[in-house]
Structures are given as structure tokens and as C-alpha cells.
């Protein structure tokens, strides 16, 4: 797995790429996964790419990606890159940034 910068490289045809950082089975991490999946199924019917990174298993990626708390969701593309902290229970912010953005 290569080093991933917080800011994704620009691409011509940019699909929605997301990465969720969690801490094992911790309650807010589980809630974040659930909330994000529901959101994606409901609001992103055209498809997206989602990677889930468990920082308890691979803590070095926190350093690499500048993650200081979990759960954190990174929008890698299309630019601009964005991060959402917390259990993603507030989907209005997600909708504003991911669907309309």
C-alpha cells in the first residue's frame, strides 16, 4: 500500500473515492460504517469507491494520512479533498459536500 497524500492527484474523469478510518469495533466507528453505507446506498446510486482502514490494525496509516481521530472519513476525489470527523450521523453535511459538491 503506497503512501496516500491527503490531497488526491487530479484525474480527468474523477470517480467518488472515499476512505473511512476507524478504530476496530469501537462504537462510533461501527456507527460511522453503518451511517456511511446507508448514505451511499441512498444518495450515491451512481457508484463510488470506499476503503475502510482500521487504525488499530494498521496505525501507521494514521500518521501517513494525518488522521488524528477516528472515525474520520476522507473524500479523496474528486477534488477538493475533504474530511469528516465523527460517526457521520449528520448526513446533511455529507450530502452537501458529496452529492452536490
Amino acid at each position: 500500500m503506497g503512501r496516500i497524500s491527503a490531497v488526491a492527484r487530479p484525474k480527468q474523469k474523477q470517480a467518488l473515492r472515499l476512505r473511512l478510518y476507524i478504530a476496530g469495533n469501537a462504537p462510533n466507528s461501527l456507527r460511522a460504517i453503518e451511517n456511511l453505507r446507508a448514505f451511499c446506498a441512498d444518495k450515491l446510486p451512481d457508484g463510488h469507491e470506499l476503503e475502510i482502514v482500521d487504525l488499530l490494525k494498521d496505525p501507521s496509516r494514521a500518521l501517513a494520512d494525518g488522521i488524528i481521530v477516528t472515525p474520520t472519513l476522507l473524500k479523496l476525489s474528486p477534488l477538493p479533498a475533504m474530511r469528516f470527523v465523527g460517526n457521520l450521523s449528520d448526513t446533511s453535511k455529507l450530502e452537501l459536500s458529496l452529492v452536490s459538491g
Partner: protein
Amino acid sequence: MARRAVPFRELEQQLSEAQSTIAALLSDQIDAVYDLRSNTPVLLGHAQQALRESEERAQHYLDSATVMLVALDTDGKIVLVNRYACSVLGGAAADLIGRDWVRACTPQRLWDASRVIVRDIAAGDISVNENSIVTATGEERLIEWRSTVRRDSSGAFDGTLSSGIDITERRRLEARHQQASKMEAVGQLASGVAHDFNNLLTVIIGFAELAIVDDAPDARHVEELKEILSAARSASGLTRQLLAFSRQQVLHAAPLDVNELIEQMTGMLRRLIGEHIEIKMSLAPGLSLAHADRGQLEQVIMNLVVNARDAMPDGGSVTITTLDVELDERSFPDEAVLPGSYVMLAIADTGTGMGEETHRRLFEPFFTTKEAGKGTGLGLSTTYGIVKQSKGYIGLDTLLGKGTTFKVYLPQGVPSIPAEDEAVKPVARLGHAWETVLLVEDEAAVRRLSLRILENAGYHVLVAANGDEAERLFADGMKLGAPVDLLVTDIIMPHCGGPELFRRLQTKSPNLRVLYMSGYTNQSSAQQAEIDAGLPFVQKPFTALEFEQRVRESLQRR
């Protein structure tokens, strides 16, 4: 180096992200923050929960352990005690934690010693020790402890942690085992002494009898000789008891109606115990037959009844009960029991009962609570020996002041078909004998006595001190046309025992008959089986008449 210009939009976004991070933190929506220097996650709420769970798990492990776990702090106060330890100590953890271990949980008489032990454990001087604890009910239990020193993260002494196993029962069983070994050793010693003693008594009794017969016309020494005989017979009674205790006398076990035996003995028992004690019977109708030696069981009943009498100096009652019972492996906690059907014979008194020390040493030979001269201390050990040799068991219930019940369990016997037993036909008058007897005995004095008795009776006697000599004499007799009619032999001899010798000679002369002599039965089970099978046998010490009768009976067997 030129500083990179940050576009306003990017700053605005970073600020917005920081605000949302703070909001998430404040609304308890995050699980962990990351220490970016050490690159390790620092878990938050989840961590506390995980820690709680881990503590609960640890407590569960502590509680499910079947050893006592006790941790003390630097002052010797209890900081941890698991459920098992609580159950042994008989208190709740909440009541024990914070208390001084030595004062709360060890017997007062051991406080000083216990403090020394706690100090030595703390100093790392001892890791394994045994110490008594006292339970909430005041009972003492012996615990084997394994201890370690606890240290805090800086390495400083933080107290001790000990795990303990309750070894009270184990120690008790070990003590019983030691007691059983001691009984066994005393038994061996007793049987060895009794064996030699029997040989001596055989000679004393035999020659005294011969002297009486020889001196009959001139009655000068007859009275003295009778005194010698009487004393020797008493001594022979003692050696029989010793042999019974050491389980080395010959038993003639046969199916036996215990109820009938008791009924026959009732008159004698009443005389034995006197009028101030009542005898009650509770005999099970249709009781199974027991497999036991009649004479020996009489001895057992007498011993137990006499014991009951002596426990009731002010009167009371003795109840004799019989019952068919089934025993399984666990019927006696201290003994492996052969499961099966047994006849139980219980003898209960309403007497003084006995304390633990008496109870423990009860079956030990020469142990007696009776005053000097009143008992030999052999009664119950004899009883024990007879019961064990009969493949039975003996148990007792006793309570100081409440009386004692002895319960004897004898294996049940299968009824035998009554057979015409020539050996038991009494020989009223002994005619003059003419047969040839080969006498084999390694004890010179017994050999001389037996020779004398046989020759007096008119037999032609060949004498050998061992099996080899006997075989030579036997072969010579065959050659000379004077074959041996009867082999009279000791059972136990060096090199070649009696039964082995008989087998060898029998191959040469199938009509040869045999009479075994022995003072005890340290023989193999095969030899015992032959005696059980009813081959003629005479037990030392024997009287001249008894010996002569046995010889005659043996010759008459076909």
C-alpha cells in the same frame, strides 16, 4: 526558501474541518485520538469499556479458579480475594478486603508465626509454605500456599499475591495411609513373632502331653505338667489373635448363616455381658449367606460385644442387627471397596462413644483405653484382621457420649452342595497304626515332637528336614518296596514348599496322601486355594491327640 502561499479557500476548509472535529469530540462521536509522535492510537470511551470488560474477565478468571487467590498490600491487608477463597474462608469479599490477613483469617495461636511467614514472603525469602487458616465458623483448614511478590511499575514492593490449595483432606488421607502402613508393619512383626512362637509352643505343648501320658502311672509331675500345658495353651490363644490381626492365619471360609450363628451365640453372649446390659436383636429375615469362617466370625462378634459391654459400665443395651446390603466403590471414603452384595452385621451400644484420638487408633494392636490388666488391646485389631482377611470391611459410627455402632460387611457366599466330608468324621479311638509316614519339617524341635507322636502311635516314620531329603527318602522307600502312604509336611520351607513337594511326589505315587502343617498362612493364593479346597491341614500349635487324629483322617481319605 519562499513560504508557500495558502489559498484562502484552503484555510477556510481547514478551519471548518477543525471546527467539525471539535464538534465531534464534544458530541462524543469519536473513539480514539492518535498520538502522532509515537504513532499509537489512544482509545477513549471504548478504551474504558474495553478496560472494564478486561477487568470483568480477569475477575471472572479469578472467580472461576478453584484455588484460593489472596493479594495483600504492603501492610498485610487484603486487597484481593477471589470467590473460591471466600468460600473456603466463609466470608464475603467485601467483608474481607481491607482487613488484616493474619488477624482476620489465621488461628490466633498462629498469629505470630503467620506474621513471620507474611514478612518472609514479602522479603522474597519463601515462595511455598503451609499454613492454617480459620474459617468464619471457626474451623481450621490447612492450606498450601504459593506466593509471589507484587511490584508496581517503578519496581517498588507493592504487596504479595498467594494462591492456596486446601490440603486438609489430603493430609488426613495421608495420615490414614500412614496409619494403615503402620498397622501393616506391626502385623508383619506380629506374624513373624507369632510364627516362631507357635513352633516353640507346639514343642512345649506336645512334649508336655507326651510326658503326661508317659508319666501316667507315676502321677508325681502330672499336676506341674498340666500347669505347663495350660499356660502354653493360653499363650497359643494369644498368638492366634496376633495371627488373626496380621491376617495370616488359615481361614476356612464357607457359606455361613450369620443369623443362625448369632442365635446360637445368644446364650453365651448374655452370660458374657451380664444382667445390667440388655441384648436386642434385629435380624433380617431371609438374610443371604455370608462367605466367612464360622469360628473367626464368632470371635469377631464376641470381641465387638465385649467392647460394647466395656463401653457401658452403668448398663445399657447392645443391639445386633443383620441386613443384606449393596456396597459400591464409594461406600468407604478411605478404602477402595469391591462393589457387590454384602451381609452387614452391626453391633450398636448405648455407651460412652469415643473421641477422635481413640477412633483413629482403634484398630491398632495393643492400643487400649481399658485400665492395665483389663484388656490386651488385641480385641479390635483381631477383629479388623479377621474382617480384612475375609475380604470384608469394617466401619463405625461413634459420638462421644452417644454410643458406638460397629458395622461389619462380609461378602455374600454362594450356598454349597453339602458334601460327605470324610475329614470331619471324628476318630473316636485310634487303633494301632502300621502305615509309613514321610515327615518333612525344617524346625528341628517340631520335627522331633512330630516324630515322637507318630512313633508313639505306631507309624513307621521317615524324617526329612527339607524337600530334597524328602524326595531321596521317598525314592528309597519305593525301591525297597516300602512306599510312603502319607506325606506330613510343613507348608513353608526354604527352597521347596509343602504343596510343591506333594505335587512332585504324587507324580511318582498317585495314591500318596498329604497332611499340611503350618503356623501361619503367608503362602501364595494357590497354596491358600488348596487349603480352601479342603486338603487336610493342621495348625500349629497342635496337641498330640489333635495331630494324631489329623494323621489318621488324612490316611483314611480316598
